């Protein structure tokens, strides 16, 4: 971390503004690649900070504030904005607030600026996107606006780096002389009743909030009157404050006063009355955005384009990333075997090759999809199309209790749950993010396909090469399609149920802005891709690596005496034992994992599984497709994959102790249902842990999916038997 970020004397500059005002772009342009990503304490909202060189001040610390239309708050996420701007505990008070304003919508943006001024914080207003004013038929006089606000206003175009030198100069000036940017309140409550309410509430404010500053007291009193009520999620509010606000609001209601409207109107009235001094407006012709939206939001054409775009995104994730994933896998397999043969054969070589190298490989293998998904999300967000996705899909998603923006993460879930869970960041509310994270792992991800491939081949025998039009092949296709449909229906049902039970929360009004279309700011898109990958590798990666080593221990201990050098190591578990085939099988069955497979057999028997399948399920916890290679080792067919005829043949001939066939169509179906619903994926759990910052939600995810899988498989197997199937 840069030294400036840790020194107590370093000046702090917060960058605040409405959503879609180019705050992030400005932050990136000012600080280059020096930014750090942290988290706001206690919540899963990312916090960016970076050092910035300012003339006369040395390095100052620049911090972003979550985009917000107002500092009033009812959700815990919105509370962050007021905490960060006003410097409420546990966040430090900034020495300067840079308010980023969308010049083309300046009145609404200035509403937030007024609130910051009320708090008595030194302000510099950055009038962003000033190059777009002409296109909307407006002219904005920055000097006149600065006179009215009593704070410096600098026109900038963050994406083109226009005006940034002037902005930095103003920031340095205000830091040197805070009075330059700290005017008095712009308006005063006209109604003496409101002024009295504010005084009464101010008395109950904690002293550490106000620091004895009278202006700050009034501002926070207004904030409390506007924010606090029975339904808010605000944390750590003193009881006295809640009580006095409730009392004042009740009194106001009794005398037919609307406190919210009084306060909000006072600010807008001040702005509207002065607008003509700094803003000239003429009727604008239909904007480019309007013309684009006529096509993209067209009831039929727009929907078709939406589906086409989503197909491209999905195809790229599903198929496009595949070759790169293959290269990463073969590279680490090669590296593992090379290292293993270079080291003296033994425990250490095994640990390095099958534990560590394979573990690093199983982390990096996710990067192609993560990078691709965030490239798409960056483009969709930056162009403004993501808001249109929510517009087009809201009714469907809302019916399921999901946010409209959950669509892209859910779709990505068909490729892989890991990037999809990372993508839930595009939603503001923690509840929306959590709900999406809890149902995405139910979607049929690509890791399930090898398992389905093997089992479907066992259900519907079909010799390779299969006639492409044969009945066997089309039945196989139908079964696979059925599994996709099944997982989708279950995921949507789970969303509807979880949203109404575990994650039941206050309904939040759906008010989204439709930002104008913009050309993506590529540097910001690339930066987000880099940050997401970096955070994934560092934080989720360590958990995945640890789990890989743990799985290696589980499946290769206690060790047997016989040992030879491994020849092929696709991953830690894929070639679980490094000895000849029958020995490999014996070693696996003797391992802790193998014994565990025996131990859980009673729980699996009602689903139709034997202990060998149990070992496969344990191995599959590393990644679902590992089930196939683990079963291959169990049956002494090491190296076989799902299309291997030997393995398919083995499944067909495998019998139970009583001589009856084990892999009957019913058992295979039960096993597929189990794979569809259970959370057999440590990487998913690791990434949920990283995103929610606790083991609570990954534990819940694992528990509910395992129970769901068990019950569904039980119902299928036992129900099928009752109906006379075998």
């Amino acid at each position, binding site marked *: 971390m840069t030294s400036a970020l840790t020194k107590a004397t370093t000046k702090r500059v917060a960058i605040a503004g409405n959503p879609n005002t180019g705050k992030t772009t400005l932050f990136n342009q000012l600080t280059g690649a020096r930014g750090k990503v942290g988290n706001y304490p206690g919540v899963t909202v990312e916090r960016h900070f970076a050092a910035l060189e300012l003339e006369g001040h040395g390095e100052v610390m620049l911090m972003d504030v979550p985009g917000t239309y107002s500092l009033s708050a009812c959700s815990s996420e919105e509370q962050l904005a007021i905490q960060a701007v006003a410097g409420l505990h546990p966040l430090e008070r900034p020495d300067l607030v840079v308010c980023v304003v969308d010049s083309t919508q300046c009145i609404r943006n200035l509403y937030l600026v007024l609130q910051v001024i009320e708090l008595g914080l030194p302000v510099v207003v950055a009038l962003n996107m000033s190059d777009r004013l002409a296109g909307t038929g407006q002219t904005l006089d920055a000097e006149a606006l600065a006179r009215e606000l009593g704070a410096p206003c600098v026109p900038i175009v963050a994406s083109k780096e226009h005006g940034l030198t002037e902005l930095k100069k103003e920031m340095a000036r205000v830091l040197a002389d805070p009075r330059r940017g700290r005017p008095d309140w712009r308006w005063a409550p006209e109604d003496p009743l409101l002024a009295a309410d504010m005084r009464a509430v101010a008395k109950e404010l904690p002293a550490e909030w106000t620091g004895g500053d009278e202006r700050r007291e009034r501002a926070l009193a207004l904030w409390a009157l506007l924010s606090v009520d029975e*339904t808010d999620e605000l944390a750590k509010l003193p009881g006295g404050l809640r009580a006095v606000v409730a009392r004042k609001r009740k009194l106001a209601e009794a005398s037919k006063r609307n406190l919210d409207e009084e306060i909000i109107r006072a600010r807008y009235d001040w702005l509207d009355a002065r607008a003509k001094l700094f803003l000239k407006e003429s009727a604008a012709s239909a904007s480019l955005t309007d013309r684009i939206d006529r096509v993209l939001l067209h009831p039929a054409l727009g929907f078709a384009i939406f589906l086409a775009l989503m197909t491209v995104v999905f195809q790229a994730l599903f198929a496009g990333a595949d070759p790169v994933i293959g290269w990463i896998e073969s590279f680490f397999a090669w590296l593992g075997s090379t290292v293993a043969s270079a080291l003296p054969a033994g425990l250490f070589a095994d640990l390095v090759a099958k534990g560590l190298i394979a573990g690093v490989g199983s982390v990096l293998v996710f990067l192609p999809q993560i990078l691709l998904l965030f490239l798409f999300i960056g483009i969709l967000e930056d162009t403004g199309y993501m808001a249109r996705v929510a517009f087009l899909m809201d009714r469907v998603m809302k019916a399921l209790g999901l946010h409209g923006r959950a669509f892209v993460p859910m779709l990505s879930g068909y490729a892989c749950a890991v990037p999809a869970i990372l993508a839930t960041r595009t939603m503001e509310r923690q509840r929306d993010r959590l709900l999406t994270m809890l149902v995405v792992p139910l979607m049929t991800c690509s890791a399930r396909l090898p398992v389905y491939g093997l089992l479907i081949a066992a259900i519907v025998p079909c010799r390779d090469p299969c006639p492409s039009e044969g009945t066997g092949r089309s039945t196989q296709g139908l079964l696979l399609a059925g599994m996709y449909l099944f997982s989708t229906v279950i995921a949507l049902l789970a969303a509807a149920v979880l949203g109404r039970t575990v994650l039941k929360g206050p309904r939040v009004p759906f008010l989204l802005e439709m930002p104008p279309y913009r050309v993506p700011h590529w540097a910001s898109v690339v930066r987000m891709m880099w940050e997401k990958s970096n955070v994934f590798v560092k934080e989720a990666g360590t958990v995945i690596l640890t789990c890989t080593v743990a799985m290696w221990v589980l499946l290769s201990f206690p060790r047997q005496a016989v040992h030879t050098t491994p020849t092929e190591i696709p991953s830690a578990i894929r070639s679980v034992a490094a000895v000849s085939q029958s020995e490999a099988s014996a070693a696996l069955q003797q391992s802790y994992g193998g014994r565990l497979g025996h131990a859980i057999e009673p729980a699996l028997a009602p689903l139709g599984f034997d202990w060998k399948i149990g070992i496969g399920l344990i191995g599959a916890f590393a990644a679902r497709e590992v089930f196939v290679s683990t079963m291959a080792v169990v049956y002494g067919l090491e190296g076989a994959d799902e299309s291997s005829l030997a393995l398919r043949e083995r499944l067909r001939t495998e019998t139970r102790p009583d001589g009856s066939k084990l892999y009957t169509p019913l058992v295979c179906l039960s096993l597929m249902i189990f794979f569809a619903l259970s959370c057999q994926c440590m990487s998913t759990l690791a990434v949920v842990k990283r995103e929610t910052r606790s083991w609570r939600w990954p534990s819940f995810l694992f528990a509910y999916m395992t129970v769901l899988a068990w019950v569904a498989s039980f119902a299928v197997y036992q129900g099928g038997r009752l109906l006379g199937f075998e």
Partner: protein
Amino acid sequence: MRERRTACPLHTLMVRLIDLSDGQEGRLVRLEGERAFRRRLMELGLLPGTTVRVVRRAEIGGVLELEVRRARLTVRTSEACLVLVAP
């Protein structure tokens, strides 16, 4: 007023936002619904007296796009029932 809405009779000069046709403007008269919803709308500049225009609606999405103070906002059709305007 359409017949199915008579359960909640309105002033003759007032209609619900959802009843405006695409492109039609109205002056906001009253906000109904929960406090968080009313407050958020007002903070976005949709105070009583403000002019609001319906830009388009997404039938599948169940959403209405509005223009207020040069900004484009979307509200759910169910929530657009809570906004009363004078056309």
